[in-house]
């Protein structure tokens, strides 16, 4: 056995190198054909005029249009606002779940995880009943301030979309944070406290550095997902909340201007891929940091983050 073991892997290790590489080809070709090729055709469509000849007309028309500028600005505004909100809310929830033990903490963590498995438009649907013009909040305002008091139309405003996205994407921050907190020895917190550090100081000096990689990974993931978010904005149905994905949809499907849609799509892909690069880079650092993000069970539940963050 001892004589066999080193001999075998050496023999098989030298031979299958070529076949191993060849086995990669079929799935690689399929994926390139179904993912890479369509993205290339989007770029191709964007530099073509109605007759099919090469033309940059769509690019100059779209990039110069106020519609595109507004959508770009609106997308960035919503994405940044939602990310900041999700980071703040997610950090608070994760810190309480990890460091302020209470009965039912496990159940609360489960509940937060459940949101990850829901379709995003569910949040907008719920918001119609909660914050719509005939919703729960409006009824409460009537009850408190009299029937004349009208709420501003939160639902169809950019703020409403930001609130909906914070609601939906906060679990994407909680998940990686809880994973990093699980690696933090509890004794460190207790020693710091026994030496006289208040809770805020413990958070800043002991928990903070440990949470930073998780925050970076969770934050850039949420920024990417909110830039790309479609369902929440579409269901809002607001005329003045047009983000880039919604613009791609209305141009491509509603007004059948494929070259115009392709230009917006190319711009969005560039933006998203840049951010995705930042996210992968941030996560590589996270993994380098003492493998803090080692999954216990990366497929547990239907957590997108569990999988996205553990690539």
């Amino acid at each position, binding site marked *: 056995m001892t004589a066999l073991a080193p001999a075998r892997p050496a023999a098989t290790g030298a031979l299958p190198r070529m076949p191993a590489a060849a086995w*990669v080809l*079929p799935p690689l070709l399929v994926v390139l054909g179904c993912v890479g090729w369509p993205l290339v055709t989007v770029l191709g469509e964007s530099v073509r005029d109605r007759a099919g000849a090469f033309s940059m007309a769509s690019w100059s028309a779209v990039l110069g249009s106020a519609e595109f500028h507004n959508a770009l600005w609106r997308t960035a505004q919503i994405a940044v606002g939602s990310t900041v909100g999700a980071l703040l809310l997610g950090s608070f929830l994760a810190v309480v779940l990890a460091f302020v033990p209470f009965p039912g903490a496990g159940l609360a963590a489960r509940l937060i995880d459940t949101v990850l498995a829901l379709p995003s438009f569910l949040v907008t649907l719920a918001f119609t009943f909660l914050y719509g013009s005939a919703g729960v909040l409006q009824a409460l305002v009537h009850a408190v301030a009299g029937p004349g008091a009208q709420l501003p139309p939160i639902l169809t405003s950019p703020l409403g979309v930001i609130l909906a996205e914070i609601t939906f994407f906060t679990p994407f921050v909680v998940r990686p944070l809880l994973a990093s907190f699980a690696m933090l020895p509890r004794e460190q917190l207790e020693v710091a406290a026994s030496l006289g550090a208040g809770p805020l100081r413990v958070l800043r000096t002991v928990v903070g550095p440990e949470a930073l990689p998780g925050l970076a990974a969770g934050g850039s993931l949420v920024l990417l997902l909110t830039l790309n978010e479609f369902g929440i904005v579409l269901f809002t149905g607001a005329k003045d909340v047009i983000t880039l994905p919604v613009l791609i949809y209305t141009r491509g499907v509603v007004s059948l201007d494929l070259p115009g849609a392709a230009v917006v799509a190319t711009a969005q892909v560039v933006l998203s891929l840049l951010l995705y690069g930042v996210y992968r880079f941030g996560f590589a650092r996270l993994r380098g940091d003492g493998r803090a993000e080692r999954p216990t069970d990366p497929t547990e539940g239907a957590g997108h983050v569990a999988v996205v963050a553990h690539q």
Partner: protein
Amino acid sequence: MLLWSRTSRAVVLAVFAVLVAVVVVAPLGTVLLAAVAGRWTGALPGGLTGAHLGAALGPAGLASLLVSVQTALLAGIASVVIGSWAALAAASAPGPLRRLVLGVCHLPIAVPSVVVGLGLLIAFNRPPLLLGGTKWIVILAHAVLVLAFTVSTVTAGLDRLDPAYELAARSLGAGEARVLLRVRLPLLLPSLAAAAGLAVALSMGELGATIMVYPPSWRTLPVTIFTLSDRGDAFLASASTVVLLAVTALLLFALSRVRSRAALR
């Protein structure tokens, strides 16, 4: 262990409870309540009714549900097959090739699903592959979108696989095919089932790419829900969402049975 005084704990936990109630419980609870509420004009819904759920399971709703389930299953199977093939092959491929394969598989989650849909719409509406206007373009879109998740689930499973089994099998003279079929795949079965579950769950709720490519003959449930919500029928839309969630949960439950049976072996 962070807060030592009784009052500060109570205050923080109260804030936590309110936030979880607003952010997590309220959205899900609202949709569940709206699905069975006859009216909802005040602070609380009123008039318990099964009419919305009944309508959601009517001929049109049922047809849509069936389309969603078939799409999820077909796309799930396709993505698990291609995804685990890619993960297995990438694991033993040289470094740069492995990164290329995993990178390409993860591309669809980096770009918006609407763009994936637009790309498929343009690329497969011309020869040699004319899929536009058929159900296959929807299934392809779903398979592409969930591929990243199946690949990473199977890759994570492979990472945790004890190499000793494989080495033992090889040292006893088993060939590559035998090692794959008799050792690695059976050990990977829980990961494959988990990947399938994730694929089905994501596919059932997919909207962005579907709405770009779907033909009228193959309308998934999320698209139907959007149509309902868009014309202001929020109660029926909620009821259909509840049906969608319930059927997704059923499918996941069935897959988790497979998974736990696989884990027992």
